[in-house]
């Protein structure tokens, strides 16, 4: 646990060269493995900045969450990599967001996690602290090129100043709207959205009334990701270190806001909103045509547009743009116990810094993190991708600072909020009681996770 990986490079030969490793390292590898759940087994795979070059056949497992569009794009990049390095092939696992981490955790518990793991900032601190993912610093400047990546974005992949995760893309919060429904009603909001939440509420209620059955917005009260920009608009943060950055009063206000929206008819009722509370994009209520709008990330327009025949647009979330921030949409990380960490790092680098990869990925995961790639491929983008880039640049220009990596145990806080918000929305709990229980449970969960 103590020695960060890579500090004792002399001890090990180039990892990834399995032929080399097999005999010489076999014994020490076994010895390390026998140490069991404890210490720094990770270092076996993460010796200093060695290249990925290996002629032995390597099969890497790659895991991510997402929809069919992402699966297609990712596969294209992996194929490109295999074309350049025929000895490296890939096995892929992808699924929706809900249950994704359970599956990774279960595999990790069996010491059998995928080599290349997509994560978001919700899991970063947990995975880094538990040494599930390898520290990437030893490769920086060698296999891993980070000079084209905005330092602020790169910083979101660091825990305690050590790089554990490479941003695959950046995105920002947005409100996706169904223009096909709104245009005939003459209710398309202005490009800049709404200056405040009251204006948003009025608009949402008007849409529901005019459309006759399609709600103006999905009820987003259960999602911590959408509460965060709202908190930031009020000058609060999600976390203050390893504690909540807000209190009961804010939760009450947040629940009340959505309660009023549900009562005015502007927001969808609980049973319509509930399926998407787990975060699965396939349950999005705009693509199921149950609501005109839903909170989303700008990059998700690709996936959403693929799932509907309607025309979709993006406007900023209601209220001040300061609530928004440029956020790492996903990271790629290397499983610390993987046998080919060096090759994995090279694949990660390929995703971020190869032009062909950038073209294949588009903005489905978010904007390319490398400035050079972004500039090189932007002209080739389709109209839809250009639209996303323009939205992102417009909003990020006025956005607030990117917050630090969320506290450890963040996913539990998300679950607790969902449960509290659902209890309120279904009328099973009073707002004040639900808020009180949420805050007390959240604080004790954070304390436990941090200890």
């Amino acid at each position, binding site marked *: 646990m103590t020695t960060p990986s890579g500090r004792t490079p002399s001890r090990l030969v180039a990892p990834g060269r399995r032929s080399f490793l097999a005999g010489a390292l076999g014994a020490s590898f076994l010895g390390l493995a026998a140490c069991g759940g404890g210490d720094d087994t990770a270092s076996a795979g993460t010796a200093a900045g060695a290249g990925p070059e290996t002629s032995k056949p390597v099969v890497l497992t790659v895991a991510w969450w997402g929809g069919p569009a992402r699966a297609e794009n990712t596969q294209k990049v992996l194929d490109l990599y295999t074309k350049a390095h025929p000895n490296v092939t890939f096995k892929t696992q992808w699924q929706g967001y809900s249950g994704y981490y359970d599956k990774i955790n279960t595999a990790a*518990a069996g010491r059998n996690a995928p080599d290349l793991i997509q994560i978001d900032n919700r899991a970063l601190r947990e995975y880094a602290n*538990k040494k599930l993912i390898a520290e990437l610093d030893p490769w920086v400047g060698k296999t891993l090129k980070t000079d084209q990546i905005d330092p602020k974005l790169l910083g979101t992949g660091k825990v305690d100043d050590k790089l554990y995760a490479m941003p695959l893309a950046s995105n920002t919060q947005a409100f996706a709207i169904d223009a096909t429904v709104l245009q005939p009603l003459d209710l398309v909001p202005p490009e800049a959205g709404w200056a405040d939440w009251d204006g948003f509420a009025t608009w949402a209620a008007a849409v529901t009334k005019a459309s006759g059955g399609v709600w103006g917005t999905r009820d987003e009260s259960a999602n911590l990701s959408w509460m965060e920009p709202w908190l930031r608009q009020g000058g609060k943060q999600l976390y203050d270190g390893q504690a909540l950055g807000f209190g009961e009063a804010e939760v009450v206000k947040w629940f009340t806001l959505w309660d009023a929206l549900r009562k005015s008819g502007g927001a969808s009722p609980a049973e319509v909103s*509930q399926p998407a509370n787990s975060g699965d994009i396939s349950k999005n209520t705009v693509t199921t045509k149950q609501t005109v709008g839903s909170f989303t990330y700008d990059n998700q327009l690709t996936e959403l547009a693929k799932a509907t025949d309607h025309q979709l647009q993006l406007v900023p979330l209601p209220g001040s743009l300061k609530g928004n921030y440029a956020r790492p949409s996903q990271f790629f990380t290397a499983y610390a116990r993987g046998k080919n960490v060096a090759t994995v790092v090279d694949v990660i680098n390929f995703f971020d810094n190869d032009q062909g990869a950038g073209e294949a990925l588009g903005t489905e995961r978010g904007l390319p993190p490398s400035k050079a790639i972004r500039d090189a491929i932007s002209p080739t983008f389709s109209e839809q991708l250009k639209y996303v880039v323009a939205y992102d640049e417009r909003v990020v220009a006025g956005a607030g600072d990117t917050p630090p990596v969320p506290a450890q145990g963040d996913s539990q806080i998300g679950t607790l909020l969902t449960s509290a918000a659902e209890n309120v929305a279904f009328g099973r709990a009073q707002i004040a009681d639900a808020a009180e229980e949420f805050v007390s449970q959240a604080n004790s969960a954070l304390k436990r996770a941090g200890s």
Partner: protein
Amino acid sequence: MADTVSRAPRVGTRRAARPPAPGGSPRRRREAVAGYTFLLPWFVGLFGITLFPMLYSLYLSFTDYDLLQSPQWVGLENYVRMLTDDPQYWNSVKATLLFAVVSVPLKLAVALGVALLLYRDRKGVGLYRALFYVPSLLGGSVAVAIVWQTLFGGQGAINDILSLVGITGRSWITNPSTALGTLVLLAAWQFGAPMVIFLAGLKQIPAEMFEAGSLDGAGRFQQFWHITLPMLSPVLFFNLVLETIAGFQGFTAAFVISGGTGGPADSTLLYTLYLYLRGFGDFQMGYASAMAWGFLLVLGIITAIVFRSGSLWVHYADEGEH
């Protein structure tokens, strides 16, 4: 048990060389050796796959274990937290109790009802028995749970049917007041196994009893109440015990239908699902182990109560004339 046979007894011969205790002739000893050799696969299974992991989980239940780092001893902390500081835990207990208390009797009633319809030999009755059994074969599968999710969804077939008779449906699985009900229905629909056992039990009841009953002027209901039920009670008891234990362990359907969350509003958060989410979702395997042992204890008590109650209502035909 059948699958234990397929577990390769690799240690076989070496272990078996140790002579077993009972003395006697060399031939008897040889037989004993052979006996233990044949038992070996089962012992390996019992100790390696059942007993050791169980005891290890007992140890883990007193630790803080995050799956990736070594367990840290915390004494009774997990148990204390479970009982005093985890409202979600009690939500899961409530949901599980409700699920078991409704689904077990319902399932048994349906199974008995269908068995009564199918136990007389009529033309094609074998086919019907097979057909009614099919849902149980599919029962634990993910596919059926997904079908259920679709059927009872807001835009599902159930609502289409209801709208034909003028009832406006709702999204059954995303509403906390009906979500658990759909799970109960799914469980009750899988009545095949107890049905087959009931069928066997019904066939055991001597026909003369019914003849004698009808000669004495007993109607159909009286025959059922005074002959069928008492004669069937040992079978009913057997089914009740098995189904109670199975009912408390429901997982797959709740997991699939709620999208792995136990939602909406924790209404389908069955005990085992919550245990799984804590253990594998939140890296709290120590806590999950404590939950598992709490579960074992309570389930043991419930089963014991059911067994005790048996003496009050189970009638064994060979108890002689009273």
